[in-house]
């Protein structure tokens, strides 16, 4: 821990007010989302607590608002603040899981391709090339569609969240695989790896203990930058109506619903989730940018 605070990373962190601010914002977003069940003033999923009478309450500062609902309510009388917190929870959950999924997949396949070389390498990289040709959002749409078609609706609704995670995750692995493969190729020929091989360590443990640590920092950068993309991809899918199930509205779902009320004066139903989404993605992207620069000092 002490080593961390003494590191260059921490140093460059403390030197950048923008980064510190975005880290703070990201932290608040994540904390607010994770702790939503504890912190949120209402539980928007508890149908029994919804009062249609309270629908369309404007934010508290607009005069007609109600202190119980600081950011107002939507068309069902759901508290917007709570809905946003729970929505961010879903968005972040999908984003993180999708990134973890594509990172794991990409790193493993990249290591394999780079370390084993030969036919494995050729096949894996060819697949990655082909997939990179297609925009990830389309891949996600496709995967989502295939699963939707293959499974009965009731089953699908229960696993919809996983489907979205899988769809977004699967559409991003080639980036990781390519980076890791490149670094692995470099590391593989270094003396210490050769030496490890000579003393008879298994390829698996060589990769794990020697190659992996060296490729982690570019992977971390890509992962952070990808988190923003994953959250946006989920929002876009949900906006198109094929994302997470409506029973677990994400920020994208909230925006889609609120969009109907944009012109009618109930702007808060769409603007607040929109702002929350932008702030969240922006802070994550700022962190990613900083991380890339900090771990890549030559670029500075």
């Amino acid at each position: 821990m002490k080593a961390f605070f003494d590191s260059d990373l921490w140093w460059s962190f403390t030197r950048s007010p923008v980064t510190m601010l975005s880290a703070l914002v990201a932290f608040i977003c994540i904390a607010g989302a994770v702790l939503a069940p504890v912190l949120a003033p209402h539980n928007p999923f508890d149908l029994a607590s919804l009062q249609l009478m309270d629908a369309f309450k404007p934010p508290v500062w607009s005069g007609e608002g109600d202190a119980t609902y600081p950011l107002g309510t939507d068309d069902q009388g759901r508290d917007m603040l709570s809905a946003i917190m729970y929505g961010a929870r879903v968005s972040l959950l999908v984003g993180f899981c999708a990134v973890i999924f594509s990172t794991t997949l990409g790193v493993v396949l990249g290591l394999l391709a780079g370390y084993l070389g030969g036919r494995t390498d050729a096949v894996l990289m060819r697949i990655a090339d082909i997939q990179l040709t297609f925009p990830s959002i389309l891949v996600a749409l496709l995967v989502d569609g295939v699963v939707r078609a293959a499974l009965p609706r009731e089953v699908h609704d229960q696993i919809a969240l996983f489907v979205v995670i899988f769809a977004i995750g699967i559409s991003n692995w080639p980036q990781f695989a390519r980076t890791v493969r490149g670094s692995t190729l470099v590391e593989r020929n270094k003396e210490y790896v050769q030496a490890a091989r000579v003393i008879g360590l298994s390829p698996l443990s060589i990769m794990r203990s020697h190659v992996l640590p060296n490729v982690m920092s570019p992977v971390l950068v890509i992962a952070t930058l990808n988190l923003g993309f994953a959250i946006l991809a989920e929002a876009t899918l949900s906006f198109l109506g094929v994302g997470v199930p409506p029973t677990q509205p994400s920020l994208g779902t909230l925006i889609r619903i609120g969009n109907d009320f944009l012109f009618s004066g109930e702007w808060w139903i769409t603007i607040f989730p929109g702002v929350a989404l932008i702030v969240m993605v922006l802070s994550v992207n700022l962190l990613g940018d900083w991380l890339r620069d900090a771990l890549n000092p030559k670029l500075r």
Partner: protein
Amino acid sequence: MIRRLFLVAAAMLAVAGAAEARTVRWAASGDPNTMDPHSQNVGTVTMMLQQVYDALIGRNRQLGLEPGLALSWTQVEPTRWRFVLRQGVKFHEGEDFTAEDVVFSITRALQPTSNFGIFVDTIDRAEAVDRHTVDIVTKSPDPILPNKLASVFMMSKSWSERHNATRPQNTRQREEMHTVRSTNGTGAYRLQSREPDVRTVLVRNNDWWGWADAANNNGNVTEVVFRPIASDATRVAALLSGEIDFVMDPPLQDLNRLRQAANTRVLEGPEVRTLFIAMDTSRDELLYSDVRGRNPLSDVRVRRALYQAIDIQAIHRTTMRGQSVVTGTLFPEQVNGYVREEDVRLPYDQARARALLAEAGYPNGFEITLDCSNNRYINDEQICQAIAAMWTRVGVRTRLNSMPLAPFFAKIQRDDTSIYMLGWGVPTLDALYSFQSLLATRNGAQGDGIWNYGRYSNGQMDALIQRMKTETGDARQAAIRDALRLYREDVPHIPLHHQMIPWAMRSNISTPHMANNQPFFRWTTVN
């Protein structure tokens, strides 16, 4: 080259603007999916085709019957109706309208590929008596045949034969039919051009037989440009910015704004469409529920409990923004057979609902899944959400399963549902249409219970429906009244409300509001 094209285009625009054109630019969320008059019985097609085609019997502004292509009609025998046709009527492409065309059109609507079977289900055949007289023979006495025929458009026999379109368009055929994109009617407007999903242009048919009749209070529109705009927000934005003159389905939440805006106004009226919750009353064990071995919905106390748990006024006020007519019965007053005394709701009473549930053996409620469409009726998904919350509050933990029209219909048509919301319109404006489709025991007979996916079955109800089919006069009205009472007592549905249809338009447009949501531009005036 490009510059010249640009100039030509500009010049053309200028010319178009200079002519004494009275254009209505009209938008709705859906585009008609065919121009064939007997292929698709859906509102989006009819709203377009009724400008172009006429039926034997027309409807006036209040949807009452009035002479159309037929000047008069009489039931000469119980199963034979005689129609005297209007003379001197020509189709848009010049053919004379005669009895042969009527026989042809009726026969065409009877083809298996027709989607208009429900309007001609009792017809056995049509016979030309002379050039301007037609007899229609029914299989059994059909007192409401004229109501049905008001929905069957008349085509030209020779034109259809020339274009190989003697059957309604069959979407299964590999080739495309002429009638999908082209029309040849007798109506007030001609189809000038059509790009599906983009734009459909109608121009005034100056030879239309109705223009001469001053009693019609005809309008002055010379051109109608229809553009489908699916997105609610975009449709409203287009109306507000003046790119569109007339919007048939403005979103409810924007009505206030449209009312207040200087250049737009909103015309409201009731629609002949009733929303209700239908329930599976026949299965021994309910699907998608946690109740084992029993079907709570087969118990009328549970149905009443669900009924009384719904705060319909809150839905009316908040979800529908006042744009609904709360009801306790199956259809609105425009429909023949409506009885005001039977249009009474069970009161909203949560305590009573809980008591009824306990009485029926469900003191802790149960779990249930409500199937709902999300793009079919006005605010359908929101209504279902509100109802789900209300039921959950009395202990019936409701999961909402909302989906687009296509999978929703597919699901309920598989009987794969335990409780669902449906909206039902009555094009014939007669009670039988609703009772027969929605509440008759499904027994294989044509038309009986075809939309009764809760498989409600009540011998008493079936007997009353049978009487509606055959009897006439007061006896028939009495049967409808009894059926309505039974509907109230047995709660096969939980009625919610009749939809209101607001039409929004630029202030310089005036048009009569139609309760079937089908505008007639021949009555529209542009100032």
